[in-house]
């Protein structure tokens, strides 16, 4: 009984709109996020804290790049691939971007089918998302290997400012870790959907609480965030 009172989303009273509504929600001496479940609200707050972490990484990269007297290596050339006798700039990064965007698309559709109680399609789309995510990590591993064999180290590289290596490994490494964790998370939730855990209300392994199809959406929030971070890394690190 206590479980339901904690988990369920209470009925929402009619409240004022706009800024007055925000003030009313926050000053109501009750829960501030009226029709948002705690699971979702907490995922959003976690993502907010993660935003600050990546924000700090990108900021330290900006500071390093702005304060070095040595020219910054040209990412367009560094990340070029030699295909068919000519150098194509940034081609691997572009493909990685498309792969990650596609995985976001399949994830969004998985959430949709989850709410329609279509277990099969939800699980398949989530596994497809996981496969695309794993592909992304694989391509990143290829990129790291290529750069390391070319002599990029956290303390130096053959083309210019020494901070290039440390910024690159730090930012893309942390992002790659997020993608890897996301893939594991996806496989776990996909298995639960496939088994029908959310239909029969089977208690979770660690929490012993009944999962709902909203868990798929919460999982999706994390995955879209990983894609979102890549948008910023792509713009600031690779294109700038």
């Amino acid at each position: 009984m206590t479980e339901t009172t904690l988990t369920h989303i209470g009925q929402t009273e009619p409240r004022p709109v706009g800024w007055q509504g925000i003030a009313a929600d926050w000053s109501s001496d009750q829960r501030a996020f009226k029709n948002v479940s705690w699971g979702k609200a907490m995922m959003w707050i976690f993502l907010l804290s993660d935003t600050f972490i990546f924000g700090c990484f990108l900021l330290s990269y900006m500071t390093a790049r702005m304060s070095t007297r040595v020219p910054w290596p040209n990412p367009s050339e560094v990340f070029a691939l030699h295909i068919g006798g000519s150098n194509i700039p940034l081609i691997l990064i572009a493909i990685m971007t498309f792969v990650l965007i596609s995985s976001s698309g399949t994830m969004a559709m998985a959430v949709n089918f989850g709410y329609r109680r279509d277990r099969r399609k939800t699980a398949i789309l989530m596994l497809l998302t996981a496969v695309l995510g794993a592909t992304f990590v694989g391509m990143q591993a290829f990129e790291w290997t290529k750069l390391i064999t070319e002599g990029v180290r956290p303390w130096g590289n053959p083309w210019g400012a020494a901070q290039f290596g440390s910024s690159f490994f730090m930012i893309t490494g942390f992002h790659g870790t997020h993608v890897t964790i996301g893939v594991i998370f996806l496989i776990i939730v996909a298995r639960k959907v496939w088994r029908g855990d959310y239909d029969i209300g089977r208690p979770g392994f660690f929490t012993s609480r009944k999962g709902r199809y909203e868990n798929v959406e919460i999982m999706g929030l994390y995955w879209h965030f990983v894609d979102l971070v890549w948008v910023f890394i792509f713009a600031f690190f690779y294109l700038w």
Partner: protein
Amino acid sequence: MAEATANGLGQHALHAAHEAPAAAVAHAEVHQEHPIRLYLVVWAWLFILSACSYMVDYFGIHGYLRWSLILIFMMLKAGLIVAVFMHMAWERLALTYAIILPPVLVLVFVAMMVFESDYTLLTRMTFFGAGS
């Protein structure tokens, strides 16, 4: 555009609460259900915008035009992902502002670090000369 199903269900839950309080718990779950078409359209736009930002590099556009184009495409992509894929467009404003406003404050940090790195650069030029 797909209207907020969340609000519709909220109303539904309100009615259910009056009729049968016990059943309200089961019905109160807020759904984020929108037509698949919407996701496909956004997906296509994300592809187009990514291709555009790649083209900026491919054609070697430089200077302020490059930077402003990169930023425009970046913000459009980020906006689409947050608003549609993450359903922020249909969430309650109290949550939206709680999540969207704090990252904006990072811009203050950016301004601070711009001054800081300018100072570092100046110091390096003064004490280490023009070499290395």
